[in-house]
């Protein structure tokens, strides 16, 4: 069983996020360094991308346990992702390292127990027992490729991204007043994203955001993603999310 220390993982991610932008800066790339000079000549350098997303997430436990207790509860999963930009591939896009942390909570009713000790459930969460809760805190570290050549070279405001990395899902299951399970499970995390940059809506406002806050671009996105986290317990899923992102 894989058991990397989560704190170590976070510290490593933190170090990456702090150090890598410096490396990127040393390279001196910015959205203006090779793009349409007439459109973005005053853009500041890009170091980081942040995304806030929300979407449904229903763990695929490989059993009926989730649906029996929580019925159709699908979260939602709310997550924040920060990508540190490592380097730019000219006329392709940015390669970065991303750290994502999410949160989802599910509520349902416990099943009763038969004389032989086996659970007796009403199905689809329609049980009469105690309250049951499941808390998921997924933390992911991913390599990210953001293909922004369309936006930078041709002014077409679409960005396509691919992500691949390690997913760690911390979880806690509580039934009534007792915790009946808690821990973490690991797996691969992947994602495919299409984003629409919003700069074209108001170029002047976009420029002001950059000058005042260092926000180079803002965008909305739709992402199909999945997790195979099942090392100790199957809690992965393949689902989608939408949200808002910003490039600093």
């Amino acid at each position: 069983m894989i058991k990397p220390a989560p704190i170590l993982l976070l510290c490593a991610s933190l170090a990456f996020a702090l150090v890598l932008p410096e490396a990127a800066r040393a390279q001196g790339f910015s959205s203006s360094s090779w793009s349409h000079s007439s459109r973005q000549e005053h853009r500041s350098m890009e170091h980081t991308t942040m995304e806030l997303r929300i979407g449904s997430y229903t763990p695929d436990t490989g059993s009926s346990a989730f649906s029996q207790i929580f019925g159709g509860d699908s979260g939602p999963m709310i997550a924040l992702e920060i990508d540190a930009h490592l380097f730019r591939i000219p006329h392709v896009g940015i390669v970065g390292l991303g750290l994502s942390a999410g949160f989802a909570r599910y509520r349902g009713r416990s099943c009763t127990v038969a004389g032989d000790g086996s659970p007796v459930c009403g199905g689809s969460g329609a049980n009469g027992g105690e309250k049951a809760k499941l808390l998921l805190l997924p933390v992911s570290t991913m390599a990210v490729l953001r293909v922004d050549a369309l936006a930078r070279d041709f002014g077409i405001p679409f960005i396509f991204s691919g992500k691949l990395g390690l997913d760690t899902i911390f979880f806690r299951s509580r039934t009534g007043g007792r915790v009946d399970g808690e821990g973490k499970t690991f797996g691969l995390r992947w994602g495919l994203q299409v984003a629409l940059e919003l700069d074209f809506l108001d170029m002047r406002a976009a420029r002001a955001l950059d000058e005042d806050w260092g926000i180079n671009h803002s965008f909305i996105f739709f992402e199909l993603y999945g997790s195979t986290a099942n090392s100790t317990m199957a809690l992965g899923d393949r689902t989608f999310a939408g949200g808002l992102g910003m490039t600093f």
Partner: protein
Amino acid sequence: MTRTVPSLLMAVALGLAPRPAAAQFTSGNITLTLFQVMEDGVVTRTSDTDLGKALNGIQCDNAANVMLNFTTNNVPSAILFLDLWVGTPSEDCSVTESRTPGDRRICSHLPQDPVIDATDGSFSVSLADLIAGSTACDTGGSEVSLFLWALATGESETTGDITTAQYGFVQFAVDPTPPAAPVPNETASSGDTAISITWPAVGEIDVTYRAYVDTASGSCEATTLVAGAPAPVDVTGIISRRTGSDARSISLNGASLGLTDRQSAAVAITAVDANDNESPISQIVCITRVPTAGFCDVYAADTGESCPQGCSVSPPGTSPSPLPLLVPFALIALGLSRRRSRR
């Protein structure tokens, strides 16, 4: 008794706590301060919080044995006893005609003239004497504010004119009416470590609730709790009492109550208002301890694999650590501050 917010504010403003004289009356030089309430010889209220409460229905029922102890200041030195009168907030007992015998008398004269303690200037008066001339303790009424007037004239029933140096007054309130009994949403509830009972709020605000759990009877039918009856006074022995906040639910742990599997217990809820009036007990809720299966139990039964235990985000029984969520925010803040500092 149902109180609206304005009436509550007024009740707070006109409550029992010693406070400056009402604006409509001319203040006398004598100051009266309630400092203690005793019931059956036992001190039951001494703190400012408790003394600010209205006298309640239980005290009304035991009025002859409830003594209110006051301190006085600025009583003329030659005066050994006080002439006490009671009036409503609209009745000025310093005015002569308010005390004049006949139909125009609006203040009530107390039958006893308390002697002032020579050492500390205190005196005592029973609740029975205080409410002798009013309906303040009649159940069903709303909270009533009254004024106790102390006249230092050397007379036992002063009828003539008095000066400001010869009187003082203090306000108190009586609230004999308990809130309505809560109506639980369930008649039965089962579970293991969190057997839940819920109920809607009773009409009155500033109410706490008590749950009486009878585990000794072994069944709900044999319980000594009776719906609509007064709350048990003796809560030792077979009845355990749990006082909750103003929350309208309670979660009972079957194991902590000493229930074995499939054993039942009777639970009743009462509401207690700010003046310690307690409602009759609610209808009985029958709770039964039954084992339950949560997500991990069902998962283990389905897959044959147990959920991990203990290697977790945080120690068992505590909330998960927010660290994974805080780190990204810290990164954002750090990144922004570094960026801005370079400008």
